[in-house]
Every structure is written in C-alpha cells, then in structure tokens.
C-alpha cells in the first residue's frame, strides 16, 4: 500500500516539488562546505546555528521581553524568582555542551 502511494505521489508531485527542494538542498550543501572564518579560526555554520539558537533564545528573554511580562505572578520580588535568571541558568549548560561538541 505504502509503495503504491509513493509511486503515485512520485508521478503526481515529484515533477512539481523537485525544482523547489533540490536547489535548497544544493544551497545548504554549499553552505556546509564553506565554513565561516574569523581571522584564523574556522567555524562551521552548523555550530553557529546550533549555539546561536540557544544564545538568541536567552537574549530574547533577557533583553527584549518586557520584565513585568516575564515575571508576572511571581510570589515575591527577589533575584531568585526572576525567570530571566532561570533562563540563563538553564540555557548555559546547553551552550557549553554544543560549543564543546562542535569544536
């Protein structure tokens, strides 16, 4: 059944979709083979995007979101109940892990 569906979809959709997705795949492969260099240090786009996702999420919570909104409903005002600090504490180990494993 699954093979029949695949065969039908390949006939119907492959000619339309392949010209859309194949150039995207080629572009990503090209990006992958051209690391970003800062001075003599070469950094892969994989590590920039991977670590960047964590860092951007942290910056978004700590710098862009309204402080009142982030902490709305907290039981008492203290640095330990500030969810911006919680975000940093919970994200930092991930940043270090991805930095370590993508060096």
């Amino acid at each position, binding site marked *: 059944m699954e093979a029949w569906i*695949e065969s039908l979809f390949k006939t119907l959709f*492959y000619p339309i979709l392949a010209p859309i997705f194949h150039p995207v795949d080629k572009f990503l492969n090209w990006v992958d083979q051209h690391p970003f260099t800062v001075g003599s240090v070469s950094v892969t786009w994989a590590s920039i995007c991977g670590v960047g996702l964590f860092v951007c999420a942290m910056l978004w919570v700590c710098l862009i979101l309204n402080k009142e909104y982030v902490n709305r*409903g907290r039981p008492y005002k203290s640095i330990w109940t500030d*969810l911006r600090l919680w*975000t940093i504490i919970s994200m930092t180990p991930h940043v270090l892990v991805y930095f370590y*494993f993508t060096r």
Partner: protein
Amino acid sequence: MESFIGLHFIDWIIILVYMAGSLMLGVYCTRFVGSAEDFFIAGKALPFWAIGFSIVTSDIGATDFVAVAGAAYCNGVSAANFDWMGSMPAMVIAAFVFVPYFWRSGVFTIPEFLGRRYNAAVQFINGMIWVVVLFFMLAIMQWLSADKLMYTVLGWNPYWTLWITAGITGIYTFSGGLTAVVFTDVVQLIVMYVGGFGLLALSLWEVGGWTTLHEKVIAMGPEYQDHFRILLPNDTTGPFPWTGIVFGLGLVMAVAYMSGNQVIVQRTLGARSEWDAKGGMLFGGFLKAMIPLMVALPGLCAVVLLPTLGRENADRAVPEMIRVLMPAGLRGLMFAALFAAMMSHISATLNSTTTIFITDIVGQIRKWIGKGALPEKLALRLGRVITATLIISTAILAKPIADREQIYVFMQTILSLFQGPVLAILLLGIIWPRATQWGGLAGLVLGVMCCFVLKYTPGLFPSEDPFLFVAWWSFVFALIVTIVVSLLTPREPDEKLRGMVWSSVVHDEEAQDALQERVAQ
C-alpha cells in the same frame, strides 16, 4: 544474545516497594479530587517544581533508556540532540509565548484554546488528531516496555508485565487524575535519576573517565570518528543532518511538541499561578538537560566496554551494562527506575487523552446536538470511565498495534505528519490578530495534506528518512496558507480576540480582566 538478567531477592524487594509506594501515593491523591477541574488540571494548584518534574517524566519512557543508549552506541552523541536541541529552546519559547495564554484563558486542552481562537471545527479536528495519536502511542509504549524491555531483559511474560503496569497506572490515574499523575511523577523522576546516574557513574568508572572514553572510541576505527560530533553534515544519509536538527527539530517539531502536545502542556495548565506555569517549564528544561547524561552516555561507554555487541544488538547496550556493572540492590533500583519511566509515561498520556476526549470530542458533539456543556459531576464520572476504557482497550490492542519493525520511525512519522501545521496556526493565532477562523482551518487541513505529500514523495531530500524536513516545510506551508486565507476572509471581531492575542495581553490589563471574566462565566 537471548540471555536474561537474573534478579536477587533484594532487587525484588526494591521493585515491589517502589510499585506499592507509587500505587499508595497515587490513590492517596484521590482525596484532592472533587470536580472535573481537579481531575483534569489538578484544581490549578500545582507548584513550579512539581510541574518541572512531571514534564520530564511524562516525556521520558522506559524505552528511551534502551533506544537512546542504542542510538548513541551506533551514532554517538548526536543521539542526544532530541533532549538538548529538541528541548530547551522550545521550552523557553513555550514558556514565554504560549503557556501564559493557555494558562490565562483557563482552558483544559490545547484544541480547546484553538477552538476559542479560531472555531469549533479546528478544535474538533485537532482534538481527533491528538486522541488517535495518543491512543496509538499508549498502545505502543505499553507493548514496547513489556515486550522489548522487560521480556528481552528479564524474560518476564510480556502479557503479565503489560497488565500489571496497566493495572497500577490505570488505578491511580483513574482515582487521582492529574494530581496523582504529577505527584507520582515527582517520586518516579527521583528514582529514575538515582538509577540512571548510578549506571553512568559505574560506566565511566569502568572505562577510566571521560578522556579515556574519548580516546578509546575514536581509536576504534573510521566509523567511530563522528561519535563525538553532535551536529552531523547536511549531506549525511542518516536521519539527523544538522539542518534538519536545527530547523526541523529545534524550530518546529520541538516547539510544536512543547507547546502543542497536551501531555506536556497540561501540567502548566494546572499551575497555581502564571509564574509557576512559566517557571515549571524552565525548571523542566533544566532537569531534562540531564537525561542524555544518563541515557546516551552509558551507550557511548558500551562502545568501549562491550565492543562485541555490534550495531545490530545496539539496543541491548543498557541491559548488558546493567548485567555487567551493577551489583544486587543497585540492579533492583535500576529496574525500579525503568518501571518509573514506563508508568509515568503511560499515566501522563492516559490522563491527557481522557482530557482531550471529554473536552474536545464529547464536549463539541454535545454542543452540536444542542445539549450544552457537560455538567461538572458528569464530566468527572465520564473522565474516569474513559480512563478505564482507554487503559483496557490499549492493553488489549497493544500487541497488534505495536508489534511491527521500526516502531520508532513509525512513531516519529506519526508526529511529523501534523506538528508543523498545528504549530503554524497556534503561533499565528497568538502573534497575529488578523488570523481568521477560516485561515486557521485551511492552514490545519491543507498543512496536514502537505505533510503526507512531502512524506510520501521520494527523492525530495538527501536524508533517507526526512521527517525533520517534512515538519519544517509543512510548517512553512501552513503559515503561508493561513496568512493568505486570513487576508481573503473578514477579520475577527475585537471582542473575540481580547486576551487571546499577544498585543492585547502584553499591553492591555483590561483585556486580561475581560478574559478572566469570560473564564469565570
């Protein structure tokens, strides 16, 4: 390799004490259940720490211990991406974009939120999708744990294991609802951590430490060179290239899972305050970061300690490590940890399936036939009947549904077939006031159709199993469809949107009050 692990008397005592303790704690929570709100969302009284613990245990099953360790044995640390890249960024987004709206709107389920924001058809379709998916998952996780884990490792009869665990989890979920599920989850996570970190410590000790592990694995040959590389190249033929991991998993599947999956979000809906709901999500992310340490790293250690195991037997990495490394007593604790993972996963899914079934299926059908909302007592009684029916029917159907090859691919494929579109309409529903009910409906239905087309049209992506790419592109497609159809249809009245969209909640206190009044009615 069909040899079973024998248990010492002390191991049996530990497992029995754990099982009896879970049952007693769960049944004790019955005293806190007096209404449907108590049963489905714990009376909105959960503190952040209980939510955090519960989110992690709801997400991690016993089979994760075995399968992730097996994947780490074969593919290295990239197997940990689902618990790192696939969790924390998504949980931060869930905590600050989605959870506040869900919590403030006072809904029981995510489909119910979509129903209020869009229309009843979106709620019903989304509810149906989740009930079917969760039913399959409930059956699959019961059979996998009983057959692939307890039978393979201990030689226990899978039917006995299945009915005993179904019986215990069914009884406390039936009696205590979400409160029982959450508080047994707290105990179960502690047991899981003790067992899991015990295995990790013994594994690393036996190998000779992290540096030695690294050197020995790399020295084993060319196929092990990427074992310490977490993001693999885009043109890899395996299912986890970095582009799929970052965009498909990190930005779509994980966000959809953490924000749109009832099993995860239901805990935050039961939070005693908005701060507890957000804090619980962040705390859960922090706890979840440790999961790969106890499920993936023992798999890496097994590469060195059990080199003859072979890739075809990789899923036996953890059982073999338990046999080789753990003494009596600790072995019982480790199996108690596996039972903890198994029971918490089942009870969480069971309670969430019931909640969606009552709220979004039965509730909608009653409205359509003109009977109005379910009375409180009837909802509670019906919730318990559905819980019992679900656990019995999934236990009976577990083997026919789950006894197939490549079950993990099957599960991931099911999830990838609707998560992109659901995330697209959830996101637009909150951040874009112009999104209309018809835009949401078209985005959901056409988005799911797009998933099927991408999944079953071969040769579009380099990966052999491109579910991560299916999730990403179906999300993009559903976004476009929702925007286009919304712009072509009349905008929603302001009164319907008050308190439901970003701008009206972040900046408008009156809107929040209006929303709370609406909930109170």
